[in-house]
């Protein structure tokens, strides 16, 4: 598996780069805890006035917040920093060096930057998720956990393909970072179940910016809300987008001529 091998290498590089700045760990831990505290306090305010939100009980929403942090951490860990570095390298022409390496270029640009402190969010998210599930007292069987893992993977694949396609646009347009900012602000809406939103917004958060598949669908899998149609739909979409983004990437690469060369 060259994917895992490369990921491990870039992860080690990330660790070596960051261990020189150890205070960053404390600062990032503080920031992550603050963000988590904000999310939970926000829930406390809302649940002071109601005992369920669109059919979701408090602890189920807490589980959703856990998934939100987990997925957000995974995106921030490798997808987002790599894609940002990739966009920069197209503009600067340094992508040339990546293309000369004897590995698949898409794989290289997708893993090239690992922001290790994002692991804090992943771990916190996992912790919150576990606490919420224990409080729910539900027996999460092996089957349910497996479906959750599969939906998490499908969500990650969908988000990854989405980012890759947006970043690939940089072969044609110079400034695409702004579009990535849209994803950031839309992702925040995923802290609440997508089903709360009115139809047009739900559509946008599902298909224009795939926040629904990244957060709500895996959380639905854990809380026993997922129907077979959504499950199959998420899998089909993940496969379709992985393939589509690959084709788009190759079309873009053919257009690349080395901006600074």
């Amino acid at each position, binding site marked *: 598996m060259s994917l895992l091998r490369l990921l491990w290498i870039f992860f080690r590089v990330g660790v070596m780069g960051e261990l020189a700045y150890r205070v960053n760990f404390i600062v990032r831990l503080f920031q992550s805890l603050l963000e988590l505290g*904000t999310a939970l306090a926000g829930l406390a305010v809302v649940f002071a006035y109601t005992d369920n939100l669109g059919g979701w009980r408090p602890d189920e929403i807490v589980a959703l917040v856990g998934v939100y942090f987990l997925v957000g951490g995974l995106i921030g860990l490798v997808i987002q920093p790599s894609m940002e570095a990739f966009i920069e390298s197209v503009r600067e022409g340094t992508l040339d060096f990546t293309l000369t390496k004897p590995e698949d270029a898409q794989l290289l640009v997708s893993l090239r930057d690992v922001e290790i402190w994002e692991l804090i969010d992943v771990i916190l998210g996992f912790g919150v998720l576990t606490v919420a599930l224990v409080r729910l007292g539900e027996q999460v069987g092996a089957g349910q956990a497996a479906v959750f893992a599969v939906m998490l993977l499908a969500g990650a694949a969908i988000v990854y393909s989405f980012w890759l396609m947006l970043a690939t646009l940089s072969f044609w347009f110079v400034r695409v970072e702004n*579009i990535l900012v849209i994803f950031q602000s839309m992702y925040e*809406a995923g802290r609440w179940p997508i089903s709360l939103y009115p139809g047009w917004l739900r559509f946008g958060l599902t298909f224009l910016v795939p926040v629904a598949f990244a957060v709500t669908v895996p959380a639905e899998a854990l809380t026993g809300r997922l129907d077979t149609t959504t499950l199959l739909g998420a899998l089909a979409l993940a496969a379709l987008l992985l393939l589509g983004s690959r084709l788009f990437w190759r079309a873009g690469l053919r257009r690349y001529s080395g901006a600074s060369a």
Partner: protein
Amino acid sequence: MRAFLELYTQQFKTTFAAMLQYRASLAIWIIGQVLEPLVYLVVWSVVSGSQGGQVGGFTTAEFAAYFLALMLVNHITYTWIMWEYEYRVREGSLSFALLRPVHPIHSDVADNVSSKVITLPGMLLVAALLALIFRPSVTVLPWALVAALPALALAFLLRFLLEWTLALAAFWTTRVSAFNQLYFVALLFLSGQIAPLSLMPAWIQTIASIFPFRWMISFPVELLLGRLTPREALVGFAAQAIWIALGLGLIRLVWRAGVRVYSAVGA
């Protein structure tokens, strides 16, 4: 005074032209500014729907009015200076601003107002569209609507002074992001962004009223919606005036101390 007027006329000409170059970025910023109040609008609509159409003195339509007004007030009073100062100090670009014969705060005011002039029509359009979807209802009190205008202007001034002062933290540390985040969390809970302040626990309402948070955002919103008595409005104006006076004093102190420790990290 005339020199001041000329200064601002020139600043507006240049910053307006500069901001027009960032139309796309401004449009994208609007999405973020719309989405957050929209999310809480949806959440509270669902809550009020499940509680028989009313929660804590707000009907579903009144929640809609609250969060749409909040969206506009937040947009008008918004500044991005706390992120920018870190960059200015780190890259040393502040050095050029220091060489000028006028205080650098004036070009920031001009920058901010120019960007608002450009984005406000778009924001109003978005608010109108959302109003068609969410059907807000407001009790219109003419005196309160009139009073909301100066309240909004003072809120802008207060928030600008406060955030500009806090931005100066960049003189002492290059790690301002954690500090900024702390401030924005406070703003989220204490200025009525997560929920109308009257729905918050009493101790939070007290803190929000003692500190400037309520007077920077929530107060003009409450006035616009006609939720305050004339007496409460006067108290609000007094609080705004006191905090602006304190802010003017504070900004001088912090600025003097800050410039002294400034050494242009990147230069």
